[in-house]
C-alpha cells in the first residue's frame, strides 16, 4: 500500500528528504489521524521501544513523540532533562547513544548542540530522529508544519505563506522556508529589518525557484496570505524595552489586523505563544495553532512506523 521505504532511515535534517518522500510521510500521517485521536486502536508497534533522550527540556515535542509511540502500542523510556544523565559524569554523547541503541529500537534526540543528531546517527545502527539540535534542525517540526498546511489547504505549491516575526533567529522558519520552497509555495517574509530572514536562506529559497517577497509591514502583507506563520519576537534581541514593545506591537495578530485577511486565511504558530497572538483570535476559524500542535502526533506516528517498517 505504501511504496515509501524508510526502514532504518535517520531523520536528521529536512534536507535529507525529497518532495516525494515528504508527500509519502504526509499521506501516511493523515491515515494516522484517527489513531492519534484515540478513535481507532493500533498495536503495530507492539513490543517496540522508543528512547527519548532530551538533553534540553521540550515538553511539547517529547510528549507528542511519547503519545505517538504509545498510541501505536509501543513502549517508551528516556529522560527529560540532562541533570538525570551520565553526560553530567563526563560521558560522551556517542557513548550515551550506544547505550540507548542497546536498550531500544528507535532513538529520539533533543540536544543543545548543532550536529548532535548527525553524530548520534553515526554511532547508532537503530534509527535516530532529530527532535532539535541547538539552533540547527528540527525536521519533525517542519514536517508537521507542512502537514498542517497540506491538510488545511489541500496543497502546498502555489499557496501564499507569510512567515512573520523573528525570521533571523527563529530556528523553525529557516528549514520551513527551505521546505516550502521545495514544494513551490509563494513566500512572503514579514519582519522588522533587524530580524529579517538571513541572506543565506533567501538565496537558498531563490535557488529552488521561489522569489520571496520581503516585507516590513504586516498590514500590507497580510491581505494576500493563505497562511500566516507567526513566530515570537524575543525581548533579548532588543537593546531596550521601549524598542522591543514598539516592534512587538507592530507584529502582533489581533482582531483589527484580521479584518484585512482573507476569510479562509489560517494562522499557525510553533507554540508556546506569548503575546504575539491575541487570545480573542483563538476562537476565530483562522486559528490553527492547536490543530498544528496536535498534528505533531500523527506525523511522528507515521515516522516511527516508517523507520521501524511496520505497516497496518
Amino acid at each position, binding site marked *: 500500500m505504501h511504496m515509501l521505504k524508510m526502514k532504518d532511515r535517520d531523520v536528521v535534517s529536512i534536507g535529507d528528504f525529497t518532495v516525494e518522500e515528504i508527500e509519502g510521510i504526509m499521506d501516511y500521517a493523515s491515515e494516522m489521524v484517527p489513531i492519534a485521536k484515540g478513535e481507532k486502536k493500533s498495536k503495530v508497534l507492539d513490543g517496540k521501544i522508543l528512547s527519548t533522550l532530551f538533553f534540553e527540556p521540550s515538553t511539547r515535542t517529547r510528549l507528542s513523540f511519547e503519545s505517538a509511540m504509545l498510541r501505536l502500542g509501543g513502549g517508551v523510556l528516556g529522560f527529560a532533562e540532562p541533570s538525570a544523565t551520565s*553526560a*553530567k559524569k563526563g560521558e*560522551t554523547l556517542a557513548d550515551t547513544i550506544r547505550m540507548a541503541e542497546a536498550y531500544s529500537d528507535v532513538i529520539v534526540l533533543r*540536544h543543545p*548542540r548543532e*550536529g548532535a543528531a548527525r553524530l548520534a546517527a553515526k554511532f547508532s545502527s537503530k534509527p535516530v530522529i532529530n527532535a532539535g539540535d541547538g539552533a540547527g534542525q528540527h525536521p519533525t517540526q517542519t514536517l508537521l508544519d507542512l502537514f498542517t498546511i497540506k491538510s488545511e489547504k489541500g496543497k502546498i505549491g502555489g499557496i501564499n505563506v507569510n512567515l512573520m516575526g523573528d525570521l533571523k533567529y527563529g530556528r523553525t522558519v529557516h528549514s520551513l522556508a527551505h521546505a516550502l520552497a521545495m514544494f513551490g509555495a509563494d513566500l512572503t517574509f514579514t519582519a522588522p529589518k533587524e530580524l529579517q530572514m538571513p541572506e543565506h536562506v533567501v538565496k537558498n529559497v531563490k535557488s529552488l525557484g521561489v522569489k520571496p517577497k520581503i516585507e516590513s509591514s504586516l498590514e500590507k502583507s497580510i491581505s494576500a496570505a493563505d497562511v500566516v506563520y507567526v513566530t515570537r519576537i524575543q525581548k533579548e534581541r532588543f537593546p531596550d524595552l521601549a524598542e522591543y514593545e514598539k516592534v512587538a506591537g507592530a507584529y502582533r495578530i489581533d482582531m483589527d489586523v484580521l479584518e484585512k485577511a482573507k476569510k479562509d486565511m489560517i494562522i499557525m504558530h510553533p507554540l508556546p505563544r506569548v503575546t504575539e497572538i491575541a487570545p480573542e483570535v483563538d476562537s476565530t476559524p483562522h486559528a490553527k495553532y492547536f490543530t498544528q500542535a496536535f498534528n505533531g502526533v500523527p506525523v511522528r506516528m507515521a515516522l516511527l512506523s516508517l523507520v521501524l517498517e511496520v505497516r497496518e
Partner: protein
Amino acid sequence: MKEFRIQPIKNGTVIDHIDSGKALKVIKIMGIDENVTSVVSVIMHVPSSKKDFKDIVKVEDRELNPKELKKIALIAPNATINIIRDYEVAKKTKVKPPEKVSGIVRCANPNCITNARTSMETFEPVEPEFTVESTKPLRLRCVYCERELENPEEHLI
C-alpha cells in the same frame, strides 16, 4: 651588481605554484618553526608563467606526509609537489582537490557538537568533517552542524 641565488637542494621537496601569498601558511602546515634543522627557502611573489604570481617553498631532507598534503591542497589548490633526489626532480605531482575534508580543519561554530567537550574535557570520538562545496574559492560545509565554514584556512588543526 652581485647575483644572489638560492642554493639547489640535493634531496628534499619543492612545493611550486603555491597561490601568491600562501607560502608562510605552507611552512606552518609543515611545522617548520624556529627549531628547523635543514635548509628551507621561501620564495614569494615571483612572476609565474601559469598565473600572474606564485610562491615557492623548498625544503631540504624532507618529504610530505598525507595529512600535510591534504592541508596544502586546501590552501594552495594549484601547487605541484616536486620530490628532489640527487639534485633532480625525481617525481612531480599536482595536489588533488579534496572531495571530503576530515580531521584537518575544525568547525568554527563553537556550538557544533564536534567542538563539545564533556565535563572530563574529552571530545566526542569523531573527526571534524566537511563536504567541499567548491574548491575555487574553497567553500566547506560542516557535515555535523551544516554551517558553512568561513575562511577555512584559518581553522587548520
